[in-house]
């Protein structure tokens, strides 16, 4: 085979930022070779330098960033020697980039057609009419419905998923040799993400574009890329083919990453998640030698913490490099995580009962000057029915706009129900706003919030914020006792006691979330609502926080309502699952029942959409088209009928689906025949053919 010129080659690339505090190396000694048509994934946690690499490739590091060493070759030419004019020609034509936030990449005051047409006009000198025609064709090829309408729309008039498709279309318009994708789907819902991933794969097949795909999600990389670079704290620690790295990882950090994400084999009782201890070092506090050693289980003094450690070829698979001095000695098979010995928790009595709960909002259609007009009803929650027992984890799964946050607000007393009841014990909370609840009731119901950077008040100390909760709920009144309880709570969430005097900005995201958990458990709650508590955290920290939440719940026999969109996390920790779509329950049952057929068509699509970072898993592709309908104008019958692949014409659009029960507690709201639902194939299959991995099948 003849040696083709790589589209992009990084040789010992080092990038630094120059700040008031001096030089901060962001990326050190980075190597990458991207062949034509190849897709290369860069995976790592926040602050590991993956976006810096992308910016360096665009030669767009900003005023204080600079390439301090190595070479950056684009089609054999060193980009550092190119003039500003040449670079401007390359950017956007030969190299195109897609960013995380689609709304921020589009100019909100320009029509989409005009923005797209700019590309051929500027880079190729095409006539405006020809450019517009090209734009139209490109919108069609990124599978946007009704491209003519979208051409004349402003960015805010189309949904997030459509915006990201427009951004991708814009990137492709100039026929780039290299496409950089920086977390292109992170801001999108799972089912929409699946569509974008499919599109990206199609592009790489049809256009032969080389791609660099940056993500924190190993599952997405598996679905899109040929090769992968794992980065840690500015260094590439492992590079290789997807298959090799996923099945024969040779760096302790890579292994740590894989054991801290819930894979289908992981179960909270049989196969707990193993978090990487500690946290990412700040760029100016990196240790000597291997940057990972303070968190590594295989650390050996004198070897790991001295001198620069080079990438070495492993001999496993082709072109598989790893930056570890000890990889040959480590027994990769023996060092598997142990199973949890503790017996599974038995669920107790019913704590929360939701009966025919409805929450509707009336919104007034008002023009700019004329008030009044039609009132519309938004059905945020419609006929919710489910129960949660003591010590049980019930997961509410759904995408944005499914009404899960509204439900949490009603439960917490920030909103009142329109009809039906929400019973905590025997007390109907549905119409008692939080001001009218007594301290004991409020203390019984607490919440862990999603965004760690928002959950604590930046102006007050950590201890003060926890103490306020203790005082408010009357758990303790004596000042010394309150302080003691604050310390005890910090112990429970595994934070040092002197954190009580710190302010939130001195804490990392994971630590803040731990404080958030401590605060929620300060009043000895009976029920804790966790609204996506880990989705904003880094992968290696997620596992630790998830485990912590589960441990406290187990010890206190608290009921946990876990709101999430991530089915793999939910599968790992939930006992029962409620799947919601546009304010209605589509399916509910135990975790086993939800993950095995019969499925509701929406559950099936959701299962298929979740990326799984395991090469042994085969997923049946169930792609659903379209986007979530607007909540102000939902379909009359089944809310899912606009996207459902099994839709029955004339029935699903007009009539509400009946609730079919399959076993005690497993209920599906669907018009499909019982037999047809039962005939469904499992979505997630392990390669050896069994429907679901009963024992651990996590790759070594």
């Amino acid at each position, binding site marked *: 085979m003849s040696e083709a010129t790589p589209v992009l080659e990084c040789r010992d690339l080092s990038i630094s930022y120059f700040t008031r505090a001096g030089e901060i190396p962001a990326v050190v000694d980075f190597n990458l070779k991207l062949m034509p048509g190849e897709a290369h994934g860069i995976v790592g946690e926040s602050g590991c330098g993956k976006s810096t690499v992308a910016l360096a490739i665009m030669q767009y590091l900003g005023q204080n960033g600079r390439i301090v060493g190595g070479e950056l070759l684009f089609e054999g030419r060193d980009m550092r020697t190119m003039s500003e004019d040449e670079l401007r020609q390359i950017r956007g034509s030969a190299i195109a980039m897609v960013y995380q936030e689609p709304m921020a990449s589009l100019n909100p005051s320009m029509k989409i057609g005009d923005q797209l047409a700019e590309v051929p006009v500027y880079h190729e000198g095409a006539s405006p009419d020809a450019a517009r025609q090209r734009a139209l064709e490109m919108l069609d090829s990124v599978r946007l419905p009704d491209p003519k309408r979208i051409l004349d729309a402003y960015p805010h008039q189309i949904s997030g998923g459509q915006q990201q498709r427009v951004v991708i279309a814009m990137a492709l318009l100039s026929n780039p040799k290299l496409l950089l994708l920086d977390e292109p789907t992170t801001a999108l819902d799972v089912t929409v993400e699946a569509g974008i991933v499919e599109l990206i794969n199609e592009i790489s097949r049809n256009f032969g574009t080389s791609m660099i795909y940056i993500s924190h999600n190993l599952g997405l990389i598996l679905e899109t890329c040929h090769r992968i670079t794992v980065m840690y704290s500015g260094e590439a620690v492992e590079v290789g083919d997807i298959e090799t790295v996923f099945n024969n990882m040779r760096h302790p950090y890579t292994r740590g990453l894989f054991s801290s994400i819930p894979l289908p084999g992981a179960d909270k009782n049989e196969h707990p998640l193993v978090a990487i201890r500690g946290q990412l070092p700040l760029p100016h506090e990196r240790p000597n030698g291997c940057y990972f050693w303070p968190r590594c289980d295989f650390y050996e003094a004198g070897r790991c913490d001295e001198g620069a450690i080079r990438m070495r070829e492993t001999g496993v698979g082709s072109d598989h490099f790893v930056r570890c001095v000890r990889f040959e000695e480590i027994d990769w098979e023996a060092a598997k995580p142990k199973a949890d010995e503790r017996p599974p928790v038995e669920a107790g009595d019913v704590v929360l009962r939701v009966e025919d709960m409805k929450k509707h909002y009336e919104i007034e259609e008002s023009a700019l000057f004329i008030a009044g007009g039609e009132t519309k009803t938004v059905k945020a929650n419609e006929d919710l029915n489910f129960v949660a027992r003591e010590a049980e984890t019930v997961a509410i799964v759904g995408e944005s706009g499914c009404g899960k946050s509204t439900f949490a607000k009603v439960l*917490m007393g920030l909103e009142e129900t329109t009809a039906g009841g929400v019973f905590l014990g025997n007390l109907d909370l549905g119409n008692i706003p*939080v001001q009218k609840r007594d301290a004991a009731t*409020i203390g019984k119901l607490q*919440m862990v919030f999603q965004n760690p950077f*928002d959950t604590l*008040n930046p102006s*007050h100390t950590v201890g003060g914020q926890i103490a306020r909760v203790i005082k408010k709920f009357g758990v303790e009144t004596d000042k010394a006792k309150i302080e003691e309880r604050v310390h005890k709570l910090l112990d429970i969430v595994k934070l040092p006691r002197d954190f009580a005097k710190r302010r939130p900005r001195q804490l990392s995201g994971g630590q803040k979330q731990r404080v958030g958990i401590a605060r929620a458990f300060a009043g000895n709650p009976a029920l804790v609502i966790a609204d996506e508590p880990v989705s904003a955290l880094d992968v290696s920290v997620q596992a630790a926080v998830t485990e912590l939440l589960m441990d406290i719940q187990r010890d206190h026999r608290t009921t946990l309502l876990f709101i999430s969109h991530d089915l793999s996390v939910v599968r790992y920790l939930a006992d029962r699952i409620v799947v919601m779509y546009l304010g209605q329950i589509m399916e509910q049952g135990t975790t086993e029942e939800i993950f095995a057929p019969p499925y509701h068509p929406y559950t099936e699509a959701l299962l298929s959409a979740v990326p799984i970072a395991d090469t042994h898993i085969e997923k049946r592709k169930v792609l659903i088209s379209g986007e979530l309908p607007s909540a102000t104008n939902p379909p009359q019958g089944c809310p899912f009928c606009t996207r459902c692949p099994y839709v029955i014409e004339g029935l699903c659009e007009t009539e509400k689906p009946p609730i079919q029960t399959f076993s005690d507690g497993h209920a599906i709201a669907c018009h499909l025949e019982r037999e047809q639902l039962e005939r469904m194939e499992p979505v997630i299959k392990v390669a050896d053919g069994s429907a679901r991995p009963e024992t651990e099948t996590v790759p070594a």
Partner: protein
Amino acid sequence: MSVATAPTPASALSILDRLRTPRTLIALVLLMWVPLSSYVFFGRHLGAAQDLVLLPAIPAVLLLYIIAFRAWSESPIAVIGLTLVFFWLLMAVTAPYLPLIDPNRPIAPFQMPGSTVDGQTFWLGTDMRGRDVLARAIWGCQRVIVWGVTATLCAYVVGTAFGLVAGYLSGWWDEIISFFANVLLSFPVMVLFILVLNYLGQSGVNIVIAVTFASAPAIMRIVRGLTLDIKTRDYIYAAQTRGEHPTYIMLIELLPNVRGPLIVDACLRLGYTTVAITTLTFLGLGLQPPDPDWGLMIREASASALLWQFSYMLIVPALSVSSLILGFNLMADGLREMSLRD
């Protein structure tokens, strides 16, 4: 603004850094402010204490200056502003102890800067009534600073309170408060001042009221906007879901988090208020003679010192006002620059 986040070893902490706790800073500000304001507000009623009351304020001003200088040394702009403002503050608290000629005693009219009469040198000359311009300029800063800061403070208390209520409680509260704010904002500022002062009479207190009417709506707008943003944060939900009273949420949870942009705005607004008060005095609507005041000095000079050679009577107070306002504005610029950097 720039409290060190990294823990420093205790031995490396100088005494000055140890003084940089919120509590000592508030104590120092009070130590400076209480004597200065009581001196200006009560003046002659203090009797024998009048001569001593400003003494503790002098070390407080110096200490505050050094602390602020060290804290903001990274921004040259802020340091220049700081120096200008603290120069005038120092003049305000030391005026009684400086070897100055009595600012109200007529000696020899129309003396040029630098001339000497009866063994007394008038470095900046005398005005048309024969009073020393230098002494009047230094004494004049007292009233401008004290009334300016008091008025701004008052406007902030009122504006912030209404802003928090409008932003947090929204609904009808917001409609009513915003409506009144819009009505007030639609008046030209000078018309508003003249209306208030003509209706209530001319006095320091009424200047404070007039400035409050003019500034509070704008402050309320800023606070309302910040509150609308912050009230969607999770920690506000957390406070709501543990049943906190709205007053607690507004004062304890919201207020400390809107202070950042407000401090910058306050520096700018101190400048505007100083201009406003000087203008009012110039128009004859504000503080009354004979005590020295920059606005008054400009007014008197503009009426009687029509010859070019006597322009120093105008220039000295005008430059004094400008330097103080420039100081406030530069401080605001520096603070904003520093807050953007981190």
